[in-house]
């Protein structure tokens, strides 16, 4: 591999100069000059000076000093990471070494920072969720009495956020549940059927109920069912059984609005 030291030595020898000549002309100590030529960079104190020496030496020989520094940097990046990172890490290491007492203090906040930020994020998320629920509940139920009755309602708006249909698919009793919302749809399945339910513009359920399952959904403004096998579902809309939506294997989409 081409190193800056090798280029510099070749150029110097081509010009017939000795290390001493270069030392006199550039004021860089011969110790450092030979170290650079041999690639023995640890001798030079500090990377800044090393780069400066390479640049000055190169410029003195009529080479492009900046190019040599770039080459040096490439070589450093290519070599073992420990060696490459050593010069840049140096100030910190020495800083820690010269002032031993404060170092444990400085480490502590960093350790705490990780979990504490996670906690803060968690608190923020919970607050946001609570705020969203409150906003939803208050906008959906304009009167306070209704809002009180609507205690079970949060299940419905919570669904789209959690995206987990399983806990919400409660098996509904045949009798219509307590009327908390203007639209209540109960579907009994006689066969497997893919179902997508959208309530008030939000997707609240997607899944494939098995034969014999019965699911109930509620909504404020409208509810849209999309069935992959229309013959498999018996729909009960606000307590009234509905006609089959379609034949076996038929894909059907049906919207329900509040009955008024």
């Amino acid at each position, binding site marked *: 591999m081409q190193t800056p030291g090798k280029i510099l030595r070749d150029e110097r020898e081509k010009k017939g100069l000795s290390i001493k000549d270069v030392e006199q002309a*550039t*004021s*860089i*100590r011969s110790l450092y000059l030979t170290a650079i030529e041999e690639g023995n960079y640890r001798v030079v*104190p*500090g*990377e*800044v*000076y090393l*780069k*400066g*020496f390479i*640049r*000055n030496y190169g410029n003195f020989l009529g080479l492009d000093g900046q190019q040599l520094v770039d080459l040096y940097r490439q070589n450093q990046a290519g070599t073992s990471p420990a060696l490459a990172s050593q010069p*840049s890490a*140096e*100030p*910190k290491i*020495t*800083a*820690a070494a*010269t*002032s031993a007492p*404060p*170092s444990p*203090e*400085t480490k*502590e*906040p960093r350790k*705490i*920072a990780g979990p*504490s*930020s996670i906690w*803060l994020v968690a608190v923020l998320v919970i607050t946001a969720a609570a705020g969203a629920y409150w906003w939803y509940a208050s906008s959906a139920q304009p009167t306070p009495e209704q809002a009180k009755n609507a205690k079970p309602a949060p299940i419905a708006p919570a669904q789209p956020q959690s995206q987990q249909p399983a806990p919400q698919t409660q098996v509904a009793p045949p009798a219509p549940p307590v009327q908390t919302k203007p639209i209540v749809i109960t579907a009994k399945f006689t066969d497997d059927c893919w179902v997508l339910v959208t309530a008030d513009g939000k997707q609240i359920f997607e899944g494939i109920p098995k034969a014999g399952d019965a699911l109930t959904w509620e909504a404020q403004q409208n509810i849209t069912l999309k069935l992959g096998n229309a013959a498999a579902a018996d729909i009960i809309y606000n307590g009234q059984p509905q006609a089959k939506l379609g034949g076996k294997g038929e894909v059907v989409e049906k919207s329900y609005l509040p009955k008024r």
Partner: protein
Amino acid sequence: MVSLFNSFSRDMGIDLGTANTLVHVKGKGIVLREPSVVAIQRDTGEILAVGEEAKQMIGRTPGNIVAIRPLKDGVIADFDITQAMLKYFIRKSMDSKSFIRPRVVVGVPSGVTEVEKRAVIDATIQAGAREAYLIEEPMAAAIGAGLPVHEPTGNMVVDIGGGTTEVAVISLGGIVTSRSIRVGGDEMDEAIIQYIKRTYNLMIGERTAEEVKVSIGSAIPPKVDESMDVRGRDLVTGLPKTLTIKAHEVQRALSEPVAGILEAVKITLEKTPPELSADIMDRGIVMTGGGSLLRGLDELLFKETGMPVHISEDALSCVAIGTGKALESLDLLKRVLMSPKKMG
């Protein structure tokens, strides 16, 4: 709870320079680099523009608008406007979502008085910082350049900014000797303006002078005598005029401020204890700041002092990077900072 605060606040380091202000945010690097200029409505005192936008207005404003550089020679000249500017820069470089105020480290010239320090701290706190710390600019520059400042060896840093030049010898995380002179990039521009005015009776603007300095300015007699066209107002006829100026003339014009910088370096070296002198002799001088990019300045310094001279990489952002690094290990570097409590 304090650590929780710290993990969320966006700590920032600010290089509050005469010419440019740079903001370094922890974990993000330099997020803002804008001229330290504020444009205000003169009658109402309302702030119209800050930074780049305001710089465009310099010299082009109608009577009721003034574009001000609130810092002069590295220190606050106009408190209220500096505060407004800092507020704008802090707001701009912070996440708008973040509701925790940041801790801020500000770089100040090493030669400032207690009153000037207090002004910077107050302005920073009132601009929305939770805590404000000061760091001496040469120290920040040395940290930013990556010098091993904590080692018991001498490092010499020459930071040539817009308004001030800071020369300091640093060892064991502290400044041993330093000198701050109010000569910098602005002074060089002014020297060019004066030279052209004296020699050719031509008045040129600050921005033109800066352009001349950057493109053909040199500290030593140039090898190739380049030339450049400058436009300005003829003082005799009062009409606009174009003039071709040679690089060696610019070099002559710049000789005075450059000599000032050289002198500062020499005086600092004279005051340096011999053990550290030997270290500096060994390693050389590190130059940072925009002024160090003046062509031939390193060569001149080398010839005059007989020491190797290095121009740091990314010379323009060294101080800002240094303030940022100081924040990252704030607890370690507390002794590098000038504590606000000490100054109460």
